[in-house]
């Protein structure tokens, strides 16, 4: 094992890093590719470019990672599917009365149905596979312009008459993407109902593997929205929250924050690449910190 002084701040980081090391050896991070890295190797490489005075803080931060292997997340999808079934008052979960859409990535839907063993994903008579809210909107709009696509017409008829509209997201951290998607679904449902295209309003359900307490608050604006999730993280899991509970000593937390600020100041304030500048500008427009030291702004209505 590399000779890293994990415990210079007296926080018992060795045990945490050993635990992460074990998790990562069993379930390697996809971004590492096929290289046989250990967590210690990764930490050593990261430390190489950080000033020495921040090494202890960096180790404390790296020891505080909450690592979620796919095997856990798959198990969560199975649990979510069971809860969905109960909510649906059904003995089995299928697509017959549910339109399932994913936030951003239709791949989530494939993964969810596979691991939760929900049959019929490709039965086009029961499951018009729109994948995302955007695709559903596109299909509805296309139908207003063309009446030559009978297959699409049938798919839309089946979709809009489902009793449940289920929105899947792998994680809901800020709540803003989920909120935007749900608002769009409400608008579509409202239009279809007002114009008597549908006789009753379907119920929207949000399902996710991981949610934050913050996101749940953001989603509170929707009365009676069922949110089915596996793991919930509150502000004790946030480095920049006054409630952070990662460390025994306040001084460790202060040093970790100082490191984050240094990283933001040294890197993001001098960043020139246009693609990332666009991202930073959007983050700042939402009220995010100028130096992006803690990552993406969680929601534009936050006051801190």
């Amino acid at each position, binding site marked *: 094992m590399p000779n890293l002084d994990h415990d210079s701040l007296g926080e018992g980081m060795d045990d945490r890093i050993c635990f992460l090391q074990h998790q990562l050896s069993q*379930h390697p991070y*996809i*971004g590492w590719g096929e290289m046989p890295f250990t967590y210690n190797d*990764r930490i050593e*490489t*990261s430390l190489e*470019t950080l000033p020495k005075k921040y090494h202890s803080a960096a180790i404390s*931060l*790296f020891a*505080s*990672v*909450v690592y979620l292997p*796919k095997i856990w*997340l798959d198990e969560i999808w199975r649990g979510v599917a069971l809860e969905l079934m109960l909510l649906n008052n059904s003995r089995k979960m299928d697509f017959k009365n549910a339109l399932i859409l994913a936030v*951003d*990535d239709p791949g989530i839907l494939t993964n969810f149905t596979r691991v939760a063993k929900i049959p019929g994903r490709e039965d086009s008579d029961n499951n018009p596979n729109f994948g995302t809210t955007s695709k559903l*909107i596109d299909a*509805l*709009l296309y*139908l*207003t*312009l063309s009446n030559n696509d009978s297959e699409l*017409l049938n798919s*839309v008829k089946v979709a809009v008459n489902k009793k449940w509209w289920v929105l899947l997201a*792998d*994680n809901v*951290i800020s709540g803003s993407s989920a909120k935007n998607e749900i608002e*769009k679904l409400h608008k579509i449902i409202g*239009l279809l109902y007002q*114009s*008597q*295209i549908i006789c009753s309003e379907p119920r929207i359900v949000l399902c996710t593997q991981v949610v*934050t307490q*913050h996101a749940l608050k953001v989603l509170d604006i929707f009365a009676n929205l069922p949110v089915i999730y596996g793991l919930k*993280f509150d502000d004790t*899991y*946030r*480095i*920049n*929250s006054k409630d952070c509970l*990662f460390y025994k000593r306040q001084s460790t937390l202060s040093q970790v924050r100082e*490191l984050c600020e240094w*990283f*933001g100041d*040294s*890197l993001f304030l001098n960043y*020139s*690449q246009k693609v990332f500048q*666009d991202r930073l500008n959007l*983050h700042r427009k939402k*009220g995010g*910190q100028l130096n992006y*030291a*803690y*990552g*993406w702004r969680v*929601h534009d209505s*936050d*006051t*801190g």
Partner: protein
Amino acid sequence: MPMDGGYTIVTQDNCISNSVPLLSYITENDSTLKYTPPFPRIESRVTHALPKDLDNISLLESNLDSLKTRLSLK
């Protein structure tokens, strides 16, 4: 302090964008600071173009009669 991310959550597939950048941010070649994070992140969005969904919903709203005729579900 603003409510920027601040989480340390990493899934096996990717580090989340609301987690602290030190965990996942890869510096570009022209950057003065060269840094290799423990969990390099793959960005799902490389551009931040505004979505057109809301415009499309407005268009849909102004063409609802046409949609109703097509669907003929009443």
